[in-house]
């Protein structure tokens, strides 16, 4: 299916509206799983970037989802690249320093669910492949295309990611017991 031919005709606006209603929550969840600081704002950016590219969509709803998450993936890659180059610096506020009982890492992680904490403990590639396969519900081929890898490499990556998750689970079970 090839949708529209550019511009902002009513069909494209309708398609954009339906795409937002169907996929905004999933995109937001994918971005949250990747540890972005403001996933809702990036979700808006992803859809703003989607609108002028609606004419590129081919392959129906699967094509729409693939394009949407390729844009979202690019935002995640940008975020990780920025973070690695220039780590965020925040001013020291003694009133907000609660390290008398917990470390700063503990305080930061307390605002996330244990699933998010587990995901953040994984390498970026592992976290990415799990999110694209499970949250975005993309196929092996679609995930490989977005990540710029072969399907064999993605298969291997997801196998390692599951093994790492299992290790983390067993470590958590040992620490609680």
């Amino acid at each position, binding site marked *: 299916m090839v949708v529209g031919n550019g511009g902002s005709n009513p069909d494209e*606006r309708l398609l954009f509206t339906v795409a937002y209603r169907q996929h905004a929550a999933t995109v937001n969840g994918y971005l949250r799983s990747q540890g972005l600081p403001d996933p809702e704002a990036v979700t808006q950016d992803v859809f703003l970037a989607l609108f002028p590219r609606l004419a590129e969509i081919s392959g129906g709803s699967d094509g729409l989802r693939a394009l949407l998450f390729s844009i979202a993936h690019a935002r995640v890659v940008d975020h990780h690249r920025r973070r690695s180059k220039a780590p965020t610096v925040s001013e020291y506020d003694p009133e907000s320093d609660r390290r008398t009982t917990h470390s700063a890492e503990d305080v930061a992680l307390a605002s996330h669910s244990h*699933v998010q904490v587990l995901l953040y403990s994984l390498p970026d590639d592992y976290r990415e492949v799990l999110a694209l396969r499970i949250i975005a519900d993309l196929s092996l081929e679609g995930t490989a295309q977005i990540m710029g890898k072969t399907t064999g490499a993605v298969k291997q990556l997801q196998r390692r990611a599951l093994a790492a998750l299992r290790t983390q689970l067993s470590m958590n079970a040992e620490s609680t017991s």
Partner: protein
Amino acid sequence: MTSAAIEDLLQQSGSDDHACLRALLSEIEALGAGDVPAPSAEVLALMAPSTGVTRPRFMSRRRMAIVITLAIAASLGMGATAAAAAIPEVRHAAQNVIQAVMQVVAPGLGKTTAPFGSPSRGDDPDPTTHSSDSDGQRRSVTKSSVSPPKPTSAPSPPRASVVPANPHATDAPVGPPAQIPTGKHSPPAQPHAP
């Protein structure tokens, strides 16, 4: 309960120990099942109007229900009317009721107006039909619907049926009640036309 994506992933990973992972993968999947974030002003500006997606369907269903209800009521009413019209007493009583109502609602209209369903005077170009309609003021309504028009009666001019029916038509050029019964042959409409 795990989704097909999780089952697919677990099968492709080739691991046997799936039990401990299924619950965790379901929780990861649930991250994408939250509420739809509110669109920003920029995103909202690109969206289709909200009336084009959900409300018209809701309204059209309501309208459809109303139309269906009215259609059923009308069909039942027409069936009852058809059955009652076969009885002469009922028919005459109904005509009297209609005439009484018409005299109350529009006093000038009830004397010369044809019954429902017959063509209006203004639309009928044949003057002979006007003569038969205006034969006997009130009787003309009942006679025209029951008996055929008299071929030998003296034909009266077509406007003769209009002018006595609404004597205010020549005096009141702008009043809406004076223009409704006269139709497009209304005499006062012509002098005031630009």
